[in-house]
């Protein structure tokens, strides 16, 4: 076999193998799966949120319920939900307060990139991290377009809710929609804590649910819809 022939055969074999191995993966990748059953989502009404300036009840309740680490250092503090003030770039003086949290994307980029499938989407649509599997590579934080994922750079000194585990240092985490409460029929801690009832939680697959009614009746927006991540957190008044 001369070199030319060898190169040709080699190229053909590699191309063939690549196709055979790659096609099933690609076809699974492109498929749209129809989901039935429960799909949890949230609606945040910014007009109601704006009534309580300086209120941090949702953040505090979340931190307490989920043992979210606070080190008093913005580099390493973790916020599963955070309230930010935003200023419009075009309209002078237009300001709003927006709670930001994990959007529990229907097409989560964080789960896509996780090398150990520690981040995954549950059947009910909630995106969570298996803290016993996460290797701490932080690729999910790089891939999240909402800065909604955090890393335990340090050991969490506090453990207020002894019924819920805290995470060791070295693993990533983000909002879980309080799965431990939701699975038991309760609402997430932030939703319970909001004095203005600005946060609403419910099943997006149930056409008669309150949350679907609210979404139908109000103009809603989701964050960075152009990316195709299909967030499940809707905003009214953004």
């Amino acid at each position, binding site marked *: 076999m001369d*070199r030319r022939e060898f190169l040709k055969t080699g190229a053909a074999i590699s191309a063939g193998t690549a196709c055979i191995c790659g096609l099933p993966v690609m076809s699974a990748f492109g498929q749209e799966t129809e989901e039935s059953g429960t799909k949890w989502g949230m609606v945040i009404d910014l007009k109601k949120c704006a009534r309580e300036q300086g209120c941090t009840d949702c953040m505090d309740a979340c931190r307490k319920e989920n043992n979210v680490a606070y080190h008093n250092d913005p580099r390493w503090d973790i916020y599963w939900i955070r309230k930010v*003030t935003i200023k419009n770039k075009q309209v002078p003086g237009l300001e709003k307060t927006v709670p930001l949290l994990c959007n529990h994307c229907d097409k989560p980029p964080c789960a896509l990139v996780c090398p150990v499938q520690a981040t995954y989407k549950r059947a009910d649509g909630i995106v969570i991290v298996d803290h016993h599997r*996460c290797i701490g590579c932080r690729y999910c934080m*790089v891939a999240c377009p909402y800065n909604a994922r955090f890393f335990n750079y340090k050991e969490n000194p506090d453990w207020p809710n002894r019924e819920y585990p805290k995470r060791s*240092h070295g693993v990533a985490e983000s909002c879980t929609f309080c799965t431990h409460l939701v699975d038991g029929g309760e609402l997430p801690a932030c939703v319970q804590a909001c004095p203005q009832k600005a946060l609403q939680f419910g099943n997006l697959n149930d056409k008669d649910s309150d949350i679907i009614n609210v979404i139908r009746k109000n103009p809603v927006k989701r964050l960075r819809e152009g990316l195709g*991540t299909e967030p499940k957190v809707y905003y009214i008044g953004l």
Partner: protein
Amino acid sequence: MEIKFEKIEGNSAMFYLWSAALAILVLGGVYSTYLMYTHGIYLSGMTNRIPWGLQIVLAVFYIGLSAGSLVTSSLYGVFGKLEYKPFARLAAYLAMLLLIGALLSILTDQGRIDRVLIEPFSHFNPLSMFSINPFLYISYVLICVIYLWAMLNEKEKWTKIIALVVVLWAIGLHSGTGAIFGFVPRELYASPLLPPGFVAAALSSGTAFMILVILALFKVTKRTLDPRLIHWIGRLLAVFIIVALYFIFIENTYRFYQHESRHAAHFFLFGGFHSVLFWVGLITIGSIVPAIILFREKTGKSISWIVAAAVMCVFGVMCERYLIVLPGLIFPPEILPGWQIVQSPMEEGIVAYSISFAEIAQALGVVGLIGLLFIWGMKFMKLVPKEAKMLAED
């Protein structure tokens, strides 16, 4: 032509002094990694907004160097240039070591090192670039071992076959590494040009690095080297530099041209310390000056000028690796398009990253280990001949 490969003596005081110095670096790296494993990686300069730092920059840099080493090796293995056979073994060995260095940099960067050797294999995610790449890296190291074995035992036919496989594998692996960044939705990452651009920069830095290693090694161990061999690799390097520059040019022009990414492009090109690295480090020192040196008839045939160009090129690509990883993290994602976050409990907007001492110790530890494996490998394996010369007048 019979080429006699030899081991290095490895008995001099200098040899043991180097070994000791490198071993100390390794110990420092191990200690620093132990501290981070027990206390948390806040000891590095990384934060919630900058989740990747020096170790990832260097991992990407080593992977690139590995490719270039392999190119030098493939000159003989794939393209049949017999006069480059003297460097083929050394280059293949170095390609393997540099990849091990990259793997170590990534390994020591993980939050839970104890799980790294289990979970990625038991819960493989075929869609994650971080799963696909370690698979490519590890298999590449294994192929390099077979390649080296074939060359050490003078198995001509095997060498040719494996040389081709390993070069194709290297291209796949470098594209994959580029895709780690290029395929995620971040303003300064997402780009289909990143993987091929990455391959181009890898080829230029690796070739430059190989020139430096060959020259240093032949000088230190008092071997004879025909300078014309280096002139030719220098020409090759110049071509790689131009190709790499072309990719950088297209990518940035595109980003600057589009309305939606212009802000990010502006930040990248004129936004701070990294912009200095870009214009001075990468473009001027790392690309244009070495390309001119190598293309000019007079300087392109002077060994000292070629060395200068190679050093500049390696430095330029190191800047480029920093520029791939960090500005994309420092520049904030536009979570709310059309709005600016003016107040937040956490860090929003453009943030700072500063390399910590512990991170540097880790990085030096990896350098130490590669160095040790390199010099001791030459003591035990016949990697370099006494003499390397041109076969015929061209």
